[in-house]
């Protein structure tokens, strides 16, 4: 039994969104299509797995019946959490447009995907450019029985500990929904102050490797800005941004905090001690050190037995299927990582 925390469904065409868009966005979509960000690099060499092709056409992940057979049935899934496609949306400067689009995505998922199989669950997309509108979207659909979390991309104008985002966190806590952070796609990287910790990336390869920089910075911000003291029931899960960096970050945060605690006065315990109650990580892309024993040591250092959850990233080019991940996990972690940790985190039976 598997719970997959990151399954990228999509639309067969942008026109599928039209019934869920109000004006002026509907008219714009009809006349001009959707808005997309491009950073002038080749992201297509990543893209989707090349062996996935829905029989009735459309891009991989666009057919709920095909995905059911190719993923849920094939690997005996308990649940597949649908996370959508188009993670550049939170880099689009027009917050009204972005809010309307993600709202249409949510309605489209409810109508087109959830009825196909009860094992489909969904994240609730919000555009964090306007936290008030994001909170309204959480209030609109946050209590839907198949919504298991709030979701946005890591492409942001400022780190997530900033008080600008508080309305989103208040709403997520109010509805008892964790928040998933997923990398924005490379096309949106120029919408950030810095595409990587060092600056602009030349290639998709360089940007994708550097996603972990961004995640380290986001988690540092969430912890030091006291988000989990301000919102004591709020939980985050960090998707597709790695986790081998976590021991280093915890040690460094704790070490600095001991001397500079005055700069994070809301905290009541060591920064790393908030992680057990508030933060989870997902497996994909599985870290692959030359010596597998080193990965096992990382698992031990980050308490993976309780903090790590399975994600496939289906149907993307670097997706990991459950048998592959199982082979890399010690027996003591298999059940918890593939199923139990996510079941507990999302409240899925």
């Amino acid at each position, binding site marked *: 039994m598997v719970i997959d925390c990151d399954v990228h469904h999509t639309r067969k065409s942008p026109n599928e969104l039209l019934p869920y868009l109000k004006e002026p966005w509907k008219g714009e979509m009809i006349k001009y299509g959707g808005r997309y960000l491009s950073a002038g690099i080749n992201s297509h*060499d*990543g893209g989707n*797995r*090349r*062996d*996935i092709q829905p029989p009735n056409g459309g891009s991989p992940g666009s057919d709920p019946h095909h995905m059911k057979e190719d993923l849920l049935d094939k690997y005996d899934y308990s649940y597949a959490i649908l996370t959508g496609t188009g993670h550049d949306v939170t880099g689009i400067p027009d917050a009204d447009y972005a809010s309307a689009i993600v709202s249409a995505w949510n309605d489209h998922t409810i109508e087109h995907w959830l009825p196909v199989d009860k094992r489909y669950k969904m994240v609730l997309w919000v555009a964090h450019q306007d936290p008030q509108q994001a909170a309204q979207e959480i209030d609109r659909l946050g209590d839907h029985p198949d919504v298991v979390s709030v979701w946005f991309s890591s492409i942001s104008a400022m780190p997530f500990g900033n008080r600008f985002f508080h309305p989103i966190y208040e709403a997520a806590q109010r509805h008892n929904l964790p928040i998933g952070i997923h990398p924005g796609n490379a096309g949106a990287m120029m919408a950030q102050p810095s595409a990587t910790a060092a600056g602009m990336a030349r290639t998709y390869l360089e940007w994708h490797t550097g996603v972990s920089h961004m995640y380290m910075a986001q988690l540092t911000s969430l912890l030091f800005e006291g988000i989990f003291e301000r919102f004591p029931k709020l939980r985050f899960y960090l998707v597709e941004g790695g986790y081998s960096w976590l021991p280093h970050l915890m040690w460094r945060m704790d070490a600095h905090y001991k001397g500079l605690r005055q700069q994070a006065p809301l905290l009541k315990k060591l920064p790393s001690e908030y992680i057990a109650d508030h933060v989870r990580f997902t497996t994909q892309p599985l870290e692959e050190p030359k010596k597998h024993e080193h990965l096992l040591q990382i698992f031990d250092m980050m308490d993976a037995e309780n903090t790590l959850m399975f994600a496939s990233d289906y149907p993307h*080019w*670097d*997706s*990991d*299927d459950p*048998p*592959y991940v199982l082979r890399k996990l010690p027996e003591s972690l298999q059940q918890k990582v593939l199923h139990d940790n996510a079941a507990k985190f999302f409240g899925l039976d």
Partner: protein
Amino acid sequence: MAFQFVATTDEVPDHGCKLIPYRKHEIGLFHENGAYYAVLNYCPHAGAPICRGEVEAPLTASADGTYTVETDRPVLRCPWHHWEFELKTGAPVCDIKQKLKTFEVVVEGNNILLDL
């Protein structure tokens, strides 16, 4: 170890791939520019059906702005994770230990034989 007939040449068009059952897996029989290659349809990385990937010409660079697309060097790129292996030898393009299993191919007239 013996050569066995597996297909006729007209069953494997140029730039095509024919899958042949082999023990618990399959063998992918490829035809690229007049040459035939046979590899196990099982990626040594994550166990993907690698023969559903694409045959590409690898890109190399000797200096900034000096690129070479090696069209005489067919490389099979896995549909999962996009790892590259030499179609002829199964050797990885990157300096890693994983290697794709290959089979010796002999063409006699219109018959393709594999050393199984």
